[in-house]
């Protein structure tokens, strides 16, 4: 499974949706994922890829990790996975 598909699967599970309902343009807000849901998703992503995501729940906009859409999240994870390899 590609990074993209896995991330979408995790986000879909968190949003209680089918992966096909999660598009690259979707935002966490539009998927109904709140702040607790976000930290839980990041935890699941870290577990799935064995990476550390530089995300600070106190101030997500200051984090070195862009969560503005599903596409930016996937891009960020792909970078982290590549750096680790």
């Amino acid at each position, binding site marked *: 499974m590609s990074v993209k598909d896995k991330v979408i699967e995790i986000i879909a599970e968190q949003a209680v949706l089918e992966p096909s309902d999660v598009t690259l343009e979707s935002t966490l807000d539009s998927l109904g994922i709140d702040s607790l849901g976000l*930290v*839980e998703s990041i*935890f699941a992503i*870290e577990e799935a890829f064995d990476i550390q995501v530089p995300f600070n729940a106190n101030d997500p906009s200051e984090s070195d990790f862009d969560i503005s859409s599903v596409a930016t999240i996937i891009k960020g994870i792909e970078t982290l996975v590549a750096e680790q390899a």
Partner: protein
Amino acid sequence: MRRVVITGAGTINALGSDVPKTLEAMREGRCGIGPLEFRDVERLSISIGGQVKDFDPVTAFNRQQLSLYDRFTQFTLIAAKEAIGQSGLSFSGELAARAGVVLGTAGGGVSTWDDNYRAVYEEGKNRVHPFVVPKLMNNAATSHVSMEYNLKGPSFTVSTACASSNHAMAQAFQMVRSGMSDVMIGGGSESMLCFGGVKAWEGLRVMSRDACRPFSANRNGMVQGEGAAVFVFEEYEHARERGAEILAELIGFAMSSDASDIVMPSKQGAGRAIAGALRDAKLNPEDVGYINAHGTGTAANDKTECAAVADVFGPHADKLMMSSTKSMHGHLIGGTGAVELLACIMALRDGVIAPTIGYEELDPECALDVVPNEARDAKVDVALSNAFAFGGLNAVLALRKV
């Protein structure tokens, strides 16, 4: 001062998954204590407990709830659903703004601590689930009940070891009695039956390896239980006006501190709490027909408790009945007083006194009528419920038949 009645009761414990099943087990003198089942149990020297079995969290709660509910919170929510359902109350407007929840627990999310310590220490993991803290905190159960039922008044968790739920229910009672609220939810919950929880208790060497036999000369220690009980405390006129079924009236309470030893009980401290509850409820000793004992089955507690009762009640101590239902459901630590309040309600409402099972041999230092082994039919107008915690913190509640 206003009168306070109980209009709802709920529980889950080793004897049953609700109040009717629990009371039936108490009437039949059934033992809920058996072999413990959880990971690493073979490394424990204590392998029995009053564990809640035939309970599947996955059928009771959804995935998101399970990620936030430790087992002690799960038990609490199951008990709260039964209690609030029975009361027929729903909370909105002014009632919701003033109604709150006060619950007791000694350990809070013990198995959440245990699971995550195991993950980071034993399994070497460097990451834990983000909800570990909101799941394990001692007030988690209280907060989830508050959120589930829209209870916006005074809400908090009380932690006084084995007296936690009696202290909590005393607070809830006090708030209704004083006029602070018309309805309060009170009770307690505990779930320490996991490897770390039982291992900690083993260290103290007060646990029995075979049975909890309160007041029996051959008693050899306490047996842990788990579960929860929750009650709806309501102002009497408020309950009457809406035609609610009244289970019993809470008429008084007292608390005291031994101020002497961190584990050994004190006859004086226990006696002051019992006498204080009689005074608060404006009772004479002769009015009391039944006491639900703290009755842990340890050498120290049982003789101290009997001596305290003898001191407070004088000749009437030989006439009243005093049983320990811990012999059946085990010691629920911070939730124990709440489950034991059910035995008081059964005595007052149904005229059935729950027995002290496992009783085999008279101890001259515990020579009261402990209702050995078989439940008894008896008319009781007033009952007390004792709780005496480690740390010497005591809380006694007084109830009357309505």
